[in-house]
């Protein structure tokens, strides 16, 4: 059956461009400008999809981007909404969520079983035995899911676009167009966005059988398009509102982040369905859906219709049907008296039967689609009088019973919404700053009123921006409420759907409320109403009405659920955008690459984890690197450490306030370990402070802490107003640690500085030229060997590195990475902040009390430490070793310490020590373990218990001799 109408004025299709496409097993034709749904309907296809839970046949509902039961798969693209997805030539489409195709869907048997699948059944029926739940979960997910994802699809990178304007008008209906014109007339730059392919909103389809709307549309469209201050963007959805009028605009290609100085929300309304038995049959649709089909796509929605009215707009729809040659069998008006509008008079004059005070009690199927309406008079209480029912044959039912505001952006902006019982709708009560509402979303319905309301909002927006604007026109609400208070009818055999996304029936909501889920947010979560792909756009309002009736209260008292961005599904590719994770390379990066480094992320940096030696494994390479440091000489890039300079009369005093140690008594030319706490006494950073002069210090921070430490120091200096200047030279300097017994020998040939232990003692700092470049030498030993940290200007780093490597060749120098360094420092029992400590670790727990000078007058964290130290410690960081005979699974970081079956700590570091020839590590353990002889068990992966024993640290060279003497 061909349902295409003869050419309709203003239609969106281009009849000169024919397109062909496949849907399931059929081959069809359509026109350019058609949507998938309109082309299928024009070809006589009425069943477009299967429902989510019961696999019932479904068709068109809204034609307004929420027909979630008519979703299609096009190759790798799942869940396309046929009501808005533009048809392309040679598309091959299937319906989503079927077992064996749309007509033979084997899962349609679920419809017959629905009595055994009440709301929430899976919570109740499948929780025992627990072990079976994964099986049931797979069954449900297969039975209910939507389209199929192609996991092999290529990655799509979608950059975001950024834009700004004076006034953003959302919705290009009559009110939005008028708002744009009046704001633009006042001199504002206006961007007018609309999700439809063309502007005009309801003027493009709600015509009432006359050309009045069409004439208005042509006039407004011409003026909007001609205005130099207005930019029109169609096919673009305002999907979310963020602080300061930052609006996410989504089109088919990308997201645009629009910063608007003012926003006019003229988003209009969603027409709402009535609830009666079989209201989901293909052919039962919203009146506006039928009007969109006729006027945008020149498609006959049906050939003979029954129209259910709860408002005067239904009569306009009847006139539209008649104007396009569709037979109207009857008008069923829920209202008792006559409306007295011109449209109603015209319908009457056309000889159409009007049943006032009647409802549609049930739709009856003929095949898969609607074949008749069961019409009943209404009793005084609003229920159907079934004894006087009448069956009216038809192949389509229109529902025109009311609307819900498309107010998501306003909810997100924090606008208070109030249920206006006059309009029967939630309307904005208190405006948000720089946000204005106009038109039907504002509760204004008559066309002339909406235009005035739009102008008024546009003028208000211009005034808000400080532009000179005329006095806004007064706005009245001249028509009766278009929203019927309760277009919902019970039926003993149910199948009266409230939510088409999730197949929720009236009784499901009643059951949920009866079980105590009688708050709108609880009701939503238990029944999942409004949680499907259309996010309640056609179900939330009815759910609120139903709950209000069950609770004997008003929709205003029940309230609405929270509206969050995005209010409409947005493609993942739009959100993901570009991968943008910047990282830093040290000045020596090229040298590491050349030496075969395998890199790892450390904070914002890329560091060599180890250098892969030819023909060796990672483990062998790491152990060789460690051995080189212990027996010869190694070099590691430590340029990622934070590097700061502080100078001024108060420099020492400042350091004593931010660090736990003492620095005022340090001699020039010496260094000292420094520990930083936060106000609660928790360790947050450590480093080395070197005194370069009376009023000048150079100090390091951890790799990850440098930015935060520097920032906090500048803030503290603002508060304390001490006479110091702080410079962050982290990026300006490179640094290496040259470590090993042969390090002094190596350096001796490169500089004229006296490197003897007498002239340059352990923990000393000196400045000297190396390879002709000025550098700073710190004689410190994180890895426990004789060694130097060499800090040098970043741009000379490669030259120095090359010189050191060249001079070190005879000594067997090897670059070593983070992995070997971790092992070497673990042998020395040195703590890594952030690995061996966590967000609760105090100095006492980390066993670094020696670095804390409690007798100072003040340092950050001192006050908290005094309080904490009065309590007995809960845990302590200790060294431990495993028996060298330990086999099987070796404990790893974060494995738990168990004592008498109770949790008693965790492993923070563990490694095999070549020096001790057994596994060593650090762990937090309970004081009971320390007191009880030091033996404990570690529960490893798989549950096995591995015995361990507390050991003194350092594990290696306990006296620290090796740091002090060299070859």
């Amino acid at each position, binding site marked *: 059956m061909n349902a295409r109408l003869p050419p309709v004025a203003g239609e969106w299709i281009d009849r000169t461009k024919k397109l062909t496409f496949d849907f399931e097993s059929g081959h069809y034709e359509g026109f350019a400008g058609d949507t998938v749904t309109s082309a299928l309907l024009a070809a006589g296809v009425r069943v477009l999809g299967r429902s989510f839970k019961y696999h019932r046949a479904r068709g068109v509902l809204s034609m307004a981007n929420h027909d979630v039961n008519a979703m299609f798969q096009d190759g790798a693209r799942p869940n396309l909404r046929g009501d808005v997805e533009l048809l392309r030539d040679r598309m091959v489409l299937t319906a989503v969520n079927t077992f064996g195709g749309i007509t033979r869907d084997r899962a349609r048997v679920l419809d017959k079983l629905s009595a055994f699948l009440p709301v929430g059944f899976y919570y109740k029926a499948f929780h025992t035995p627990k072990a079976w739940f994964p099986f049931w979960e797979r069954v449900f997910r297969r039975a209910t899911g939507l389209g199929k994802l192609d996991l092999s699809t290529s990655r799509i990178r979608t950059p975001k676009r950024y834009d700004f304007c004076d006034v953003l008008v959302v919705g290009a209906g009559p009110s939005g167009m008028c708002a744009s014109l009046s704001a633009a007339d006042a001199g504002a730059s206006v961007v007018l966005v609309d999700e439809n392919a063309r502007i005009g909103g309801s003027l493009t389809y709600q015509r009432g059988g006359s050309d009045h709307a069409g004439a208005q549309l042509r006039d407004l469209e011409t003026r909007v398009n001609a205005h130099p201050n207005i930019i029109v963007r169609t096919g673009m959805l305002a999907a979310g509102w963020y*602080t300061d009028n930052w609006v996410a605009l989504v089109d088919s290609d990308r997201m645009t982040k629009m910063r608007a100085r003012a926003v006019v929300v003229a988003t209009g309304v969603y027409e709402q369905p009535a609830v009666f038995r079989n209201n989901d049959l293909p052919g039962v649709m919203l009146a506006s859906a039928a009007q969109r089909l006729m006027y945008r796509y020149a498609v006959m929605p049906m050939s003979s219709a029954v129209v259910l009215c709860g408002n005067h707009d239904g009569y306009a729809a009847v006139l539209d049907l008649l104007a396009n040659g569709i037979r109207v069998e009857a008008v069923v008006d829920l209202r008792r008296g006559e409306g007295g509008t011109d449209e109603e008079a015209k319908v009457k004059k056309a000889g159409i039967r009007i049943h006032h005070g009647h409802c549609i009690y049930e739709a009856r199927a003929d095949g898969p689609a609607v074949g008749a309406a069961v019409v009943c008079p209404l009793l005084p209480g609003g229920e159907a009088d079934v004894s006087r029912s009448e069956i009216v044959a038809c192949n389509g039912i229109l529902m025109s019973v009311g609307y819900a505001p498309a107010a998501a952006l306003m909810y997100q902006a*924090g606008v208070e919404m109030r249920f206006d019982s006059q309009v029967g709708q939630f309307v904005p009560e208190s405006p948000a700053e720089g946000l204005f509402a106009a038109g039907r979303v504002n509760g204004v319905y008559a066309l002339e009123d909406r235009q005035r309301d739009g102008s008024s909002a546009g003028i208000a927006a211009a005034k808000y921006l400080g532009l000179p604007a005329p006095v806004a026109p007064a706005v009245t609400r001249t028509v009766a409420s278009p929203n019927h208070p309760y277009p919902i009818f019970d039926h003993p055999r149910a199948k009266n759907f409230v939510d088409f996304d999730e197949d929720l029936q009236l009784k499901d909501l009643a059951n949920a409320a009866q079980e105590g889920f009688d708050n709108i947010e609880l009701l939503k979560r238990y029944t999942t109403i409004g949680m499907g792909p259309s996010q309640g756009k056609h179900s939330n309002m009815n759910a609120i009405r139903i709950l209000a009736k069950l609770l004997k209260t008003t929709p205003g008292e029940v309230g609405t659920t929270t509206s969050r961005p995005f209010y409409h599904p947005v493609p993942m590719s739009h959100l993901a955008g570009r991968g943008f994770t910047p990282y830093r390379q040290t000045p020596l990066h090229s040298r590491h690459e050349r030496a075969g480094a395998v890199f790892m992320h450390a904070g914002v940096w890329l560091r060599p984890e180890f250098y892969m030696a030819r023909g060796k494994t990672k483990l062998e390479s790491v152990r060789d690197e460690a051995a080189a440091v212990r027996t010869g000489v190694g070099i590691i890039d430590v340029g990622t450490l934070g590097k700061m300079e502080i100078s001024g009369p108060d420099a020492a005093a400042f350091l004593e306030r931010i660090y736990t140690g003492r620095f005022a008594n340090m001699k020039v030319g010496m260094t000292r370990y420094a520990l930083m706490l936060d*106000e*609660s006494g928790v360790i947050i950073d450590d480093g080395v402070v070197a005194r370069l002069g009376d009023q000048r210090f150079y100090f390091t921070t951890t790799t990850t802490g440098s930015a935060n430490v520097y*920032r906090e120091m*500048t*803030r503290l200096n*603002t*508060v304390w*107003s001490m006479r110091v200047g702080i410079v962050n030279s982290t990026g300006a300097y490179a640094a290496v640690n040259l470590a090993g017994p042969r390090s002094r020998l190596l350096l001796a040939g490169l500089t004229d500085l006296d490197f003897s232990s007498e002239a340059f003692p352990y923990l000393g700092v000196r400045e000297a030229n190396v390879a002709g470049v000025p550098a700073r030498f710190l004689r410190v030993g994180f890895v426990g060997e004789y060694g130097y940290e060499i800090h040098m200007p970043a741009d000379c780093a490669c030259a120095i590195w090359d010189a050191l490597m060249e001079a070190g060749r005879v000594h067997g120098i090897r670059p070593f990475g983070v992995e070997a360094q971790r092992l070497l420092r673990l042998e020395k029992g040195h703590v890594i902040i952030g690995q061996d400590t966590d967000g609760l670790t105090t100095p006492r727990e980390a066993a670094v009390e020696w670095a804390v000078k409690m007798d100072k007058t003040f340092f950050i964290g001192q006050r908290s430490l005094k309080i904490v130290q009065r309590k007995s410690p809960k845990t302590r960081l200790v060294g431990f070793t495993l028996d060298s005979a330990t086999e099987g699974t070796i404990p790893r970081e974060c494995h738990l310490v168990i004592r008498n079956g109770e949790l008693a700590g965790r492993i923070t570091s563990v490694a095999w020590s070549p020096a001790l020839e057994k596994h060593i590590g650090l762990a937090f353990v309970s004081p009971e373990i320390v007191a009880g002889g030091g033996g404990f068990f570690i529960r490893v992966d798989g549950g096995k218990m591995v015995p361990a024993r507390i050991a003194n640290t350092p594990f290696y060279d306990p006296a620290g001799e090796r740091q002090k003497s060299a070859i």
Partner: protein
Amino acid sequence: FNRNGAPGVKREWWLHLASGIWFVAERDTVADKVLRTYLFGEAPT
């Protein structure tokens, strides 16, 4: 140190990163509105 996280008017530290200037902002965390800003020690009376 003993910060109160309950919604209301809060005095907060803000940093202008480009110039490295710290300032104090009084912000209503319920309405997410900055009420006033000033340099440390220069609070208007």
